[in-house]
């Protein structure tokens, strides 16, 4: 795979794809929840940020593994 770079980068890209899908769904649900109940927007926002950060943490696990794999390859 010398011409195109390491496979590890493709793995990292797939992990990020999963994160994008997940956080996109969270954002969508949060916005819909706020639209239905504007008074609860503070709580919904906090829950959205925490859930998004947890998913981003998992995606970054994938990126870190991609880094390590890229160095060996």
């Amino acid at each position, binding site marked *: 795979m010398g011409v195109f770079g390491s496979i590890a980068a493709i793995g990292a890209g797939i992990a990020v794809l999963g994160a994008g899908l997940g956080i996109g769904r969270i954002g969508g649900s949060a916005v819909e929840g706020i639209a239905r109940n504007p008074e609860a927007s503070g709580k919904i926002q906090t829950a959205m*940020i925490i859930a998004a*950060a947890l998913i981003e*943490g998992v995606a*970054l*696990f994938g990126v870190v593994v991609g880094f390590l794999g890229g160095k060996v390859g």
Partner: protein
Amino acid sequence: MKGSTKEESFNVSEFIMHHIQDAHEWHLWGKDSSATSIYLPVILWDNGLKLFNAKHLYHGETIHIEGEEPVHYTVGTGAAKGYALCHEEIYKIKKGGLQFHEGHPTNVHPMDFSITKNVLALFIGSFLLVLLMVSTSNFYRKNGAVAPKGLAKFLEPIIVMVQDDIAKANIHGGKHKRYVGFLLTVFFFILINNLLGMIPVFPGGANLTGNITVTFFLAVCTLLITVFSGNKNYWKHIFATPGVPLALLPIMIPIEIIGIFTKPFALMIRLFANMTAGHIIVLALISIIFINKSEAWGLLSVPMALFISVLELLVAFLQAYLFATLSALFIGAAVEEDHH
């Protein structure tokens, strides 16, 4: 992106790695031999204390090893005799230079307690943190519980936010008072060091929170506080989770025990990877100018880097808030009283 066959082509990955990693000098400006840097003290324990200025290592003889992956290292002179520096790590060297195996030196490391760039950045960040907090508390000590002016006016809403939205909201039953100090420290330490890392000039610009040993230590603090604050209810949830049939317990208990460690581990990786990835993106965008060797590319590269930097400001604050919130959640779970 590997360099082309022409000489002096710009090696992007080396440029990026050099700016992300720890170093024994703090590079201010200039290039290669005419560079201006602050050379930091090297403190080694190698059957005795060895103390010398890093410039003896950096100004030593540079040796290039050709091959599939060319490597170069510098051999120390003067007070640094007997040591060599390869990729910012110090090795003991005898006659014959460093021995390499698959691209990595196999010589022995002496025990390295040097003041490196990250250690100096830690001192600067901590000093700034203490300065800010002591000034704020001095205001209230002098004036009592009145509406603040100056620095205290700027910091009070943030401190109150940490106390109310992070500590009180996650640690129920009024027990948050014991842990507010830790949460405030963690929040402001991460925030200040993230923001300092965004500033390109000295004293900012060191990638401290992107150093995995620093985030490891912060995560260990959270782990220790969680484990040592655990009450009977917490340990009951781990070893005898209510509502689980007895046959499943041999599976649940190891999972719960591993869960005690994976939560701070995720905290560590999350902060490290977010900060390092942000720095890498900004550096890669700026490298566009140097790869194409023309200033005109700056018209594209600088606005993109600016946009990413604004995003990085948000990430700096968010990561501090998140680390504190998740720590508070774990501590809250540890001290929670039983309620059916």
